[in-house]
């Protein structure tokens, strides 16, 4: 890497006049700040203020608290999804990975009193194994990601059945409930799940933005052949992205279990969390064609949806139209962004 550059003596600056070049002065304009996150935050806050103006309950601390809590699980999934989509992949299997983790840890906690630390270990193991399987299928067997994860979606969903034999989790030990519902301390009434999310967000943001692994993810998403030619370990990086997505989905499963105190065979898949997480990642500004990923955007996207869906209840939209509202918001959010990105 310590390349000897040409000796400075031959430098002839300014030799390129007349040829249109990306001038240095263009930098400021093009080095786009995170416009998407700012816009999402602005729209979310605007929604809160607008609905809050007519209905004070909406702006109550408690409601804000729960809107935040509600988006934690989806945010975790979307963060993993962001990493995968940035490689130009997609991970449909996050929903059954979430469900399987919630089921396995839930049943063990319910029956054998699995300590929380053990649950974290098991979640990690499930996420690692299932995520890595996805990654290997994509990277080694060259099965297109959407097909790979469609296949493992069925397989992993089946595992939930095999493991649970159709039973469900109805309650969790106290430690879990605290993880899902507690606050950090009375002085600092920050919900623990939000803290967990914040830590994960910071981690993903750092990895994607400031580590070789993260940059390799983006490079592969930009141009896989060029990335390979440049010596990026394409297979390992891809596997890494899917593994990370698996682990985050498993963590989401544990958070889901802790928060709701329940797990059934259709947890995750029943709510189509895989599709939701993709939508949220894209709303957040990650490019479906890969090469661009936005961790903060993903979380803000999930928060945005959470706020919108709660707002629909507050403004008395009939429940039948909630999912239409969600669809519309996805469309608006993604399209509004596409316009900005387009040349």
């Amino acid at each position, binding site marked *: 890497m310590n390349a000897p550059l040409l000796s400075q003596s031959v430098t002839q600056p300014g030799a*390129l006049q007349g040829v*249109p070049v990306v001038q*240095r002065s263009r930098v400021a304009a093009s080095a786009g700040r995170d416009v998407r996150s700012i816009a999402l935050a602005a729209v979310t806050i605007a929604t809160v203020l607008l609905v809050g103006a007519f209905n004070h309950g909406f702006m109550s601390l408690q409601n804000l608290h729960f809107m935040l809590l509600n988006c934690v699980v989806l945010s975790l999934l979307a963060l993993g999804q962001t990493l995968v989509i940035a490689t130009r992949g997609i991970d449909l299997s996050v929903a059954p990975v979430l469900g399987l983790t919630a089921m396995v840890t839930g049943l063990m906690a319910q029956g054998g009193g699995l300590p929380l630390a053990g649950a974290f270990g098991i979640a990690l193991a499930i996420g690692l194994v299932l995520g890595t399987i996805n990654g290997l299928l994509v990277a080694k067997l060259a099965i297109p990601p959407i097909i790979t994860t469609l296949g493992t979606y069925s397989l992993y969903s089946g595992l939930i059945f095999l493991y649970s034999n159709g039973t469900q989790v109805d309650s969790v030990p106290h430690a879990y409930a605290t993880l899902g519902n507690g606050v950090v301390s009375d002085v600092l009434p920050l919900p623990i799940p939000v803290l967990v999310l914040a830590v994960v967000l910071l981690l993903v943001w750092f990895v994607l933005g400031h580590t070789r692994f993260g940059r390799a993810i983006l490079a592969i998403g930009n141009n896989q052949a060029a990335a390979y030619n440049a*010596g990026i370990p394409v297979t390992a990086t891809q596997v890494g992205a899917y593994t990370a997505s698996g682990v985050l989905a498993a963590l989401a499963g544990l958070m889901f279990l802790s928060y709701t105190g329940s797990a059934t065979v259709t947890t995750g898949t029943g709510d189509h969390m895989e599709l939701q997480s993709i939508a949220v990642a894209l709303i957040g500004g990650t490019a479906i064609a890969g090469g661009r990923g936005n961790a903060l955007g993903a979380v803000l996207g999930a928060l945005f949806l959470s706020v919108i869906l709660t707002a629909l209840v507050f403004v008395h939209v009939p429940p039948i139209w909630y999912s239409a509202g969600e669809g519309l918001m996805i469309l608006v959010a993604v399209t509004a962004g596409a316009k900005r990105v387009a040349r």
Partner: protein
Amino acid sequence: MSRQSSERGQAVTGHYRASDITKSYGSVSVLRGISVSLEPGRIHTMMGENGAGKSTLFKVMSGIVRPNTGRLTLDDRSIAFASPHEAHAHGIYLVPQEPALMPELSVAETMFVGQLPTTGKLVRRVDWTTMKMRARAALDTLGLDIAVDAPARLLSIAQQQQVECAKALLRGCRVILFDEPTSPLTTHEVQHLFATMRRLRDEGYTLAFISHRMDEVLEISDDISVLRDGVLVDSVRHEQFDRTRLLSQMVGREMRTIPRRSWSCATDQPALTVSNLGRAGTFSDVSFTLHRGEILGLAGLVGAGRTEIAEAIFALRPHDSGTVTLNGEMISDLPTDEIIRKGLVYAPEDRARHGAILQMTIAENVTSGLIERVRHRLGLMDRADEDRIGADTVQRYRVRCAGTDQTLRQLSGGNQQKVVFGKWMGLSPTVAILDEPTRGVDVGAKEEIYELIESLAKDGIAILVISSEMEELVRLCDRIVSVYEGRIVAELSGDAITPERVARSYLSHAGDVQDIAA
């Protein structure tokens, strides 16, 4: 010329040899026992017809393709690599014809992809400051004024190639292979690239180069090797360069070079009239008339907007103002397919992206310009007719292929270009816009295409040629219109058309005429 360079404290000289390289794809033998020797401090050019195996040889030498047999040695040490990255580690770098940058990443990061500098003890994070500094330094060294923070997608092809050069330097590569770098460049940009290459050569780097442009080759090369059908037919040093001999070796027969023709079939009947065509920020007030039988050239720098003007005429891009008339009929509000039916065709410059569908067969590509012409009944196609049209085209344009059902991907660049050309000419247009019609086409085929263009003109077809090859414009055109920053700035015709005057006509606006003097 400092041939020896030992900045790394080793006796690295960069004498890169390939011996007895063979490579075949299935039953097709592409390289048949080729041996070449690249010496440090010299620029070694590969010439040869389309499909001769030049790119394949470079791919073998840079780790993209594995040879079936043969040996690679660097400074008499045997080397082998399984990937371009391993080749880089050995100091060998291929600048591909279409550089593969990372559109969404910054210029600096795209240069450092795969080897981002890191910092920090506990957690290793990317050291952006160092990265930018070193990227800046590398670009400065090559005299490039490119913003390292800008997204790479904003770079022109010429800039991308130069960034690739800088990448090679950053990776400490001493052997740099350029696969047809000049074909997407204008004369001016070619000169700038050559300046860079000369600079590298003088620093003792080992350079290899592919080009179909004879003048360029004679100008820049220290050694020339000629490939034909996967065999190295000759390898000569600078002193022995002989244009005619090179040509005949390449083609395997006598070649005559035709000078600027004296005749013209231009009439004064307007075929295509463009008036005040404009699009905010791209081009403005473009007016010209193209007559039946006339060959009109559009000259200019890359980014001058010639392609954009052509695409606007062909309704591929919107325009804000002005009109286009084809044979007396307004076409400026028609969609592309209507325009094609009215007799105007446009062969785009970017073959792989716009001109051809690489996964489809030759026959399918040929008919793709107007599929309706193979309509049978009930909206169904007549496949036999399609095959016939495909076979005709293959024969007429001498496409080197195994059959009309071969996919285009399997053809060499030049042969692909012939298919694209055949696709449009098969429609018997009255006006044809040809954007860089011979990009990546070898000398033999080039001459054929020139003759073909001329025969079209003789048939009364009006032809607009957009080209960045001065020779080509001078060779072909009855009249030349120069474009600078989206405006028409000059018009030359008849004997006024000389390379110097054409170049001056647009460069006078750019203010560096002296650069073209060479």
